[in-house]
């Protein structure tokens, strides 16, 4: 017998209850997908940030808040710091930078830590971007400040329809796009890179502060830790962080986020399981006569068990599919809201927000949970006392 068809018909016979149950499962799945996708993206981006300056020491003002390699809040550094860092024994190069998160063209927004502008001394671009190339036709910004040239990330260029030669306005200053970074990096694709002095004039209005971080590259044979210790001993008012130390700052936070996400998902799965089990128990108790009849005509216990479990699994499958679809939309809405990147860009890039593997994992988990949820009702159905049921119906 086509068990799946039979089970579908059984579910359709109690449309309202089945729909409510599927809705409940899909609601749980929506939250699991939205929370999971959002936290995953967040942690991936944060972890990706530490790829930058790996092996180098990052020097920031004492008390500055650092997320991975970048200062997100806190003090600025005086010009003299760069020279002092450069003079520390074991430091090969010291490159100052002015990093600003959360800018938007024309205005500065508070909720979007995605956009980043980085001022770097011309010629030192690779300290930030490594080997990332520019799209054809582009150039790195000219050191000539009069030209006011910048390089933008691919995602920014796509969002604002920027090409080489386009003009963008920031802090009441018109800037010219000299090149577009060809990258899929979450940070670089949303970055605006400009000569350090131009950034100083834009953000400070003067050049008395060099920026808010210095990247110190240790000489060969010298460890990050040695450089860090020396910088902190010799220069007052700064904090130097090794790659590991930078990781240690956010890793507990990221682990907390992941644990909470897992906890929320587990609770939602549990609630979904309780819902499915309850509905399946009601279904079984209403269909006692059907199961007793199957038993009487010789159906093996496994067949009866399979019918109930297939029904709950179908609920999980339908609820899971609906949940993933709606959850993906929710995740995109959340991502769009918190980054100010238009929805349309996310829809084109859906699988970067929610990977197919993540979707399959959630669907498989929902189906598995629903399958398990059917076990107790299935045991109840397959172990029914048939003579009692058949006798009590008259």
């Amino acid at each position, binding site marked *: 017998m086509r068990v799946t068809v039979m089970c579908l018909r059984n579910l359709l016979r109690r449309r309202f209850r089945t729909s409510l149950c599927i809705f409940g499962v899909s609601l749980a799945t929506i939250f699991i997908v939205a929370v999971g996708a959002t936290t995953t993206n967040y942690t991936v981006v944060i972890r990706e940030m530490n790829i930058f300056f790996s092996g180098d020491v990052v020097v920031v003002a004492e008390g500055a808040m650092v997320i991975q390699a970048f200062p997100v809040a806190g003090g600025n550094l005086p010009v003299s710091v760069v020279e002092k860092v450069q003079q520390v024994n074991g430091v090969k190069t010291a490159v100052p930078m002015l990093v600003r998160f959360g800018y938007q063209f024309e205005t500065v927004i508070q909720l979007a830590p995605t956009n980043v502008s980085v001022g770097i001394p011309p010629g030192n671009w690779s300290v930030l971007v490594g080997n990332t190339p520019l799209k054809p036709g582009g150039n790195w910004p000219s050191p000539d400040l009069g030209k006011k040239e910048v390089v933008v990330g691919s995602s920014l260029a796509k969002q604002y329809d920027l090409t080489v030669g386009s003009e963008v306005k920031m802090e009441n200053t018109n800037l010219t796009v000299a090149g577009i970074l060809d990258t899929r990096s979450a940070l670089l694709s949303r970055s605006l890179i400009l000569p350090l002095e131009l950034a100083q004039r834009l953000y400070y209005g003067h050049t008395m502060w060099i920026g808010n971080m210095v990247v110190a590259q240790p000489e060969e044979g010298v460890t990050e830790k040695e450089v860090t210790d020396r910088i902190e001993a010799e220069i007052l008012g700064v904090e130097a962080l090794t790659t590991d130390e930078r990781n240690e700052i956010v890793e507990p936070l990221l682990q907390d986020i992941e644990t909470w996400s897992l906890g929320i998902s587990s609770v939602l799965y549990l609630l979904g399981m309780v819902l499915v089990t309850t509905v399946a128990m009601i279904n079984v108790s209403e269909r006692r006569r059907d199961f007793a009849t199957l038993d009487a005509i010789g159906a093996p216990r496994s067949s009866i068990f399979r019918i109930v479990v297939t029904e709950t699994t179908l609920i999980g499958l339908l609820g899971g599919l609906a949940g993933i679809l709606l959850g993906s939309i929710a995740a995109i809405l959340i991502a769009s809201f918190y980054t100010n990147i238009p929805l349309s860009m996310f829809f084109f890039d859906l699988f970067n927000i929610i990977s197919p593997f993540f979707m399959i994992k959630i669907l498989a988990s929902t189906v598995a949970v629903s399958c398990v949820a059917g076990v107790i009702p299935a045991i109840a159905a397959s172990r029914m006392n048939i*003579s009692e049921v*058949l006798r009590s119906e*008259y």
Partner: protein
Amino acid sequence: MIAKTQELTRMYRLGASVIVAVNKVNLEVKEAAFVSIVGPSGSGKTTLLNLIGLNDRPTSGKVFFKSEDTSLLTDKERRKIRLQNIGFVFQTFNLLPTLTALENVELPLALAKVPPKLQREKAIQLLEAVGLSDRLQHRPKELSSGEMQRVAIARALANNPCLILADEPTGELDSETGYEITKLLLSLCRKHKTTVVVATHDERVAKASDVKYSIRDGMIT
């Protein structure tokens, strides 16, 4: 001998009291016989049929099926006997509501792992035999009581059982339809040499039977 009971007793506990539904019943059901078990409601007919049909286990006494002591059989073995050798017809038809008439008849065949094509052929043949060739795709709620009972009979015959147990098969039917169903069961018995045991309080069924057992308060009188 298809079935035989020996001092068959079935007791139930109902709260603090114990009810003796079947009390030391001895009976024999011969091959190709049309046997009726007659008695008022609550006399133990259904319990007796459930015991003979291996749906229930006795408190004491024995049920022999084709000379085999069924008390020694496991649940799995009893199910196998029910599937392959016994057909059940219930008072309230007990058709699965989400399946069509054809699918209801196919069900025991599917459980017996008959190939799908043969299932379909056999089910159609049986439904034609009970006069329902034009109702194959109808669900139970689209059928009359008489038609539902015919489907139930076709289902009971699906795996060519040697014994059909019918519990008040005419109980839910009007007089005329009940008569038709009785004739159908009788013809099965006569034509196909299938043993039929009917629990009933319908006198016409009792009169048509080869052997009649009267039961009262769980005892054969």
